[in-house]
């Protein structure tokens, strides 16, 4: 069992929490997410051009880069997280260019050394898997793919091929942190995906409140929350850990109890 498969084998759905590395005191913020009940951590790698993200995560990227965050800093944050939390799965999420700048083999090996379990790269679709996927697999890191409302039945097998860890269902055609998908469309999509794969399905984009998260967790294996947490980091600075812990506990309560 890997850390990721463990997280999705618990008796309850998994809460997946995203924050951007280097935005605020990231180590303290990550600890707060775990204490609040996060089952999987997504650590965002900051990028100058986050074209799939809405204003909340765009601003987090700018704050992080403005503070001078480097790739080495992101890897150090991951390494220290792994030392403090040996069993909590950690996924790096970001864009292709910072990941492949020094070569995909370098990145895969550095991520492996940092204790990273999976990588979500927004702008490497299955068609360009060669750019990073083979090196991640060779290093034992799960390439986590995204499926979206535009991923039709003809295309889905290609998305699933070579996908590992979990499948991230982007519930709206749009950018992060904006509108929320209708519950019925999420239910239909998750059913369709589950019929096609044994991978756990985590649903994200536009999920902000415990109520939304709880409703999604009734059908999905995991729920991803990002922008709402990143906004707390932006608003509260050094006081963010307490706020994050409280907010995450609310989300975790709803997600973990969704099928009781």
């Amino acid at each position, binding site marked *: 069992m890997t850390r990721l498969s463990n997280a999705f084998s618990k008796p309850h759905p998994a809460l997946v929490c995203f924050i951007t590395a280097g935005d605020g005191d990231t180590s303290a913020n990550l600890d707060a997410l775990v204490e609040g009940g996060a089952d999987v951590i997504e650590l965002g790698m900051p*990028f*100058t*051009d*986050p*074209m*799939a993200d*809405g*204003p909340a995560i*765009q601003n987090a990227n*700018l704050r992080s*880069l403005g503070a001078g965050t*480097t*790739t080495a800093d992101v890897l150090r944050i991951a390494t220290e997280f792994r030392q403090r939390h040996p069993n909590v799965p950690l996924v790096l999420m970001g*864009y*292709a*260019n*910072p*990941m*492949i*700048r020094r070569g995909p083999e370098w990145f895969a090996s550095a991520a492996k050394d940092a204790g990273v379990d999976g990588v979500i790269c*927004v*702008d*490497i*679709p299955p*068609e*360009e898997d060669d*750019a990073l996927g083979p090196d991640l697999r060779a290093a034992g890191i799960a390439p986590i*793919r*995204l*499926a*979206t*409302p*535009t*991923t*039709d039945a003809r*295309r889905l097998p290609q*998305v699933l091929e070579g996908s590992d860890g979990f499948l991230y269902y*982007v519930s709206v*055609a*749009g*950018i992060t942190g*904006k509108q929320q998908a209708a519950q019925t469309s999420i239910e239909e999509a998750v059913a369709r995906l589950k019929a096609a794969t044994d991978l756990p399905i985590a649903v994200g984009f536009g999920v902000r409140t415990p109520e939304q998260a709880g409703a999604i967790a009734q059908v999905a294996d995991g729920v991803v929350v990002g922008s709402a947490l990143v906004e707390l980091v932006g608003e509260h600075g050094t006081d963010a850990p307490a706020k994050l812990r409280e907010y995450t506990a609310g989300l975790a309560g709803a997600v973990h109890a969704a099928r009781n």
Partner: protein
Amino acid sequence: MASHPNTYKNQPDERGHFGDYGGRYVAETLMPLVLDLEREYRAAQADPAFQAQFDDLLEHYVGRPSPLYFAERLTEALGGAQVWFKRDELNHTGAHKINNCIGQILLAIRMGKTRIIAETGAGQHGVATATVCARFGLPCVIYMGAEDVRRQSPNVFRMKLLGAEVVPVTSGRGTLKDAMNEGLRDWVANVHDTFYIIGTAAGPHPYPELVRDFQSVIGKEARAQMQDRIGRLPDLLVAAIGGGSNALGLFHPFLDDPDVKMLGVEAAGHGLDGDEHAASLLGGFPGVLHGNKTYLLQDEDGQITEGHSISAGLDYPGIGPEHAWLKDTGRVEYTAITDEEALEAFQLLCRTEGIIPALEPSHAIAAVAKRAKDMPKESVILANLCGRGDKDIFTVAERLGVEM
């Protein structure tokens, strides 16, 4: 990694790769859309009616073919090779951008799309897009960096007159690349009805290929016109490069003519030795941005850095992927021209030929001036005069210290 293929015209491959470059590095939401676009483009290529409509609009709406002009006084002033210009600045809307916009709006209509979006830097592509949208009655949203909106107010007003909505982009640093990010964000949220008219030969496949193909009318005409006027092909082609669509449009039909040399001219801004330039090929490294792999201005961590050029049309931190491949194969030579050199060339053309060029082709003219001197008088240089300079007179006046 110089290689010598039998033809330079068989790129990209079926995955949209030009050697190691190009590709489709987009979010999954957009992937089905770019696959649709590719299918529709293949169908359009095979459809004589599509080509006929494209040709008809280029002739009667854009004003093609553009003239091929021998610049006699400039040639005399330089004292070397004969200098000829392809006069794409005489097109409707004043630049080569309209060639591509005509092609893409016909594709959009073919695909049943009812809303057009585009990004623009200086506003030339925005004006060309707004123009074709007015011509075909489609609503149009143009994303433009907030700083560019302020600096290029005449073009903003033109777009509004043409019925476009101009959205100032304040995200990121409010530049052309941020406008392109915002265009991609719009597209991903409006996948069912929206067509994104990309302004240069970059972005996810098939954009680099189809923009090149639509712009290749420049080189096809020039090839026939040269044969007609002097009975042979030119010795050297020269064109300015931002994203690279006017250069590819001129170069591509000549790529398999081994005696025709080619020179692409990037913007050296304040000089290649500092950070204030926009020379992605000469001063950047391969990476992935805006849907394609290509040379990018970036730091050691892969963060994209801002380009600088006196020409707003050249200060994009990337370049079309076919240029990246042409550089690596050695088929095209690339050089860079500073702001100062471009300004001098701008004034030189005004005075010798009575043509006010845009600052983009002023970079090409400066490179021509450097090369022509050392070439024999019987040799022939053909440069693409890809835009007229009306839009740039305020910038030039400011740089020359003239109050307007």
